[in-house]
């Protein structure tokens, strides 16, 4: 009987190969090491998969939806009408000297992007269960690609924002050039929170159940319906632990001539970086068992 070890040849060092160009060795072993460099290279070589997944998500979303893309506008618009009545009129919340609907709508479209993105990222691995158990791809591709479809809705809602700015006669100043940076910051928030949530969700489906509630709480912990100017003194730095405070203030500063974010923005930046790095580490540790557990 030929047994497992009988004809095993010695490991071949890759450098010893000569002649015809051959693909390099790809290794699979139990490993505790997390190599960010290798991950980035791997992600880059699978970038097309990420793009295709994002495009497919978009296509599926608007198939058989009678109002189609109009939902991207209807959702923030209806929320703003409601909030303008409740918080703007009845509660009379201050809005940094910006007309309340403008104040609220600008924040709302960023918020909806983040909320949609985080939810999609958290579900991205579980929903692609079939892929995870049947093919190889760098697993971070799934939550990463979940951050993109929402940008399309955001872009459409943004066009409406321009209309609203014109209607309310609000003119942004030079800070408008920073608008893309705030959108990028929002994406960073989505990705940094999305990684650990997606990985947690594979093991604990509680994530999916708890998420809607968590997003509600996060909404009211962020300056969407009210202004962050309500928070004063040293509390500003505590408040900035929620990075969305800086993202929303910054976006409103850029597009709606709101007040510029203060030095507490650095706290938000630090939080995002810490969450991103810690989240990636957790993800890398958890991903080894994704295919077995999901």
């Amino acid at each position, binding site marked *: 009987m030929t047994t497992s070890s009988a004809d095993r040849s010695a490991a*071949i060092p890759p450098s010893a190969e000569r002649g015809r160009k051959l693909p390099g060795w790809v290794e699979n072993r139990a490993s505790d090491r997390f190599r960010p460099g290798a991950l980035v290279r791997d992600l880059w070589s699978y970038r097309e998969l990420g793009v295709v*997944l994002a495009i497919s998500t978009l296509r599926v979303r608007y198939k058989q939806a009678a109002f189609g893309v109009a939902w991207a506008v209807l959702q923030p618009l209806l929320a703003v009408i409601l909030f303008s009545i409740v918080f703007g009129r009845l509660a009379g919340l201050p809005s940094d000297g910006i007309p309340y609907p403008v104040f609220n709508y600008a924040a709302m479209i960023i918020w909806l992007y983040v909320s949609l993105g985080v939810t999609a990222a958290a579900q991205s691995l579980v929903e692609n269960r*079939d892929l995870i158990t049947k*093919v190889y791809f760098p697993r971070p591709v799934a939550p990463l690609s979940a951050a993109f479809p929402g940008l399309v809705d955001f872009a459409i809602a943004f066009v409406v924002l321009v209309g609203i700015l014109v209607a309310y006669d609000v003119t942004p100043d030079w800070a408008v050039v920073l608008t893309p940076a705030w959108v990028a910051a929002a994406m960073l928030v989505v990705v940094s929170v999305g990684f650990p949530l997606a990985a947690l969700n594979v093991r604990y489906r509680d994530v999916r159940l708890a998420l809607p509630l968590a997003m509600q709480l996060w909404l009211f912990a962020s300056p969407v319906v009210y202004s962050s100017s309500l928070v004063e003194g040293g509390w500003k730095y505590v408040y900035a632990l929620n990075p969305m405070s800086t993202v929303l203030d910054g976006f409103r500063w850029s597009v709606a001539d709101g007040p510029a974010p203060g030095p507490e923005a650095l706290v938000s930046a630090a939080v995002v970086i810490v969450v991103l790095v810690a989240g990636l580490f957790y993800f890398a540790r958890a991903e*080894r068992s994704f295919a077995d557990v999901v």
Partner: protein
Amino acid sequence: MQTAIEVEGLSKRYRLGQNLGGYKTLRETLMSRRRRDAADEAHLWALRDVGFSVPQDQALGLIGPNGAGKTTLLKILARITQPTTGISRTRGRAGALLDVGTGFHPELTGRENIYLNAAILGMSRREVRRRFDEIVDFAGLERFLDTPLKRYSWGMYLRLAFAVAAHVEPDIVIVDEVLAIGDARFRAKCLEKMSEFGQEGRTVVFVSHDLGSITQLCRRAIWLDHGQIQADGPSEEIVRRYVRDSVGDVPRADFTPDPSRRVQVLAAEVADGSGVAIDHPERGQPLTLRVRFVVREPLPVVAIGFTLQDHRGIRVLDEVWGEHGSDMLAIDDAPTEIEAEIVVPPILPAGSYLVGVTIGSSYDLFLEQEVLHFRVWPRADDPADSLERDRVVQPPVTWHVGRAGIR
């Protein structure tokens, strides 16, 4: 010849229950953390110290009973999951076909699914654009390109899926059981494509219970059992030994119920022509092949199939009930147990056989390729050398011998 696959000391341990509805709730974890005792930690070694290497131009067949670790090994080779210990090295990208149509979305059209599926299998968009017409040609579905996949029939779905898979060009082709799906023409097409891969000098690793296609496609086979390599060598020899050695003492098999499976075979047995279970089936008498399976979710059962392979892996029988749509068994009150049997006329020569069962609904196909190994014994009055003859069937024949022209 260059080595394409190197596997050393590979083991994979699953926590029991992990791959049957794996995830759990946070509360369960918190509870079990508190009283984590040895009894909680039941493990199963799906692979245990497996090692082999495959030269670059070789097609390797993997055989073994269900639960032998074949799929786990493929998943490690394809980097879908990590080994618990040991290393698997592959030269270049290993493309795994563990299923057809991975990632297909029912709402998307055929065209959109081609792009999606190709990207999932590792093809670049430029490559897909370049070969799009070829893929469509291969599938023969030009007219349905803009139809949502959910309106496709099972056959069309398979054709589209395989057309994409056949145009992906990984360095190492890993195929699990795909050939068992679909009709004979589809199987033949798949086999042809697979041998093409082999002729192009690609490395192929192929799992199948269809032992005939293993010997046809692969010069070498590895027999896995309980996560360990049982034998490794020329495929004909390994298949022969596998079929011979897998036969149990009695022609009967029972399976542990696994509630996570929607459809599962629970028992299979051989009976005589009148349906009475027997321990010692003999050649020259009709035999009944009987299978009992459970359907755990409401399901329209539209097809039940039996296959019977001999020791060479030749399909002696491939019978399907309900293939023409007139018969149907709608299971509304699941779980329900179904019994199906066929009576095989007295044609089987003495030897070892392998029974496979397929159960099909409108959308899914449940394959149990190896439900029963059994032996048909020679009759007491058979000549001693009767077993050595190389025949596929042995029906009763009538001889007429005499001098020419006399009759």
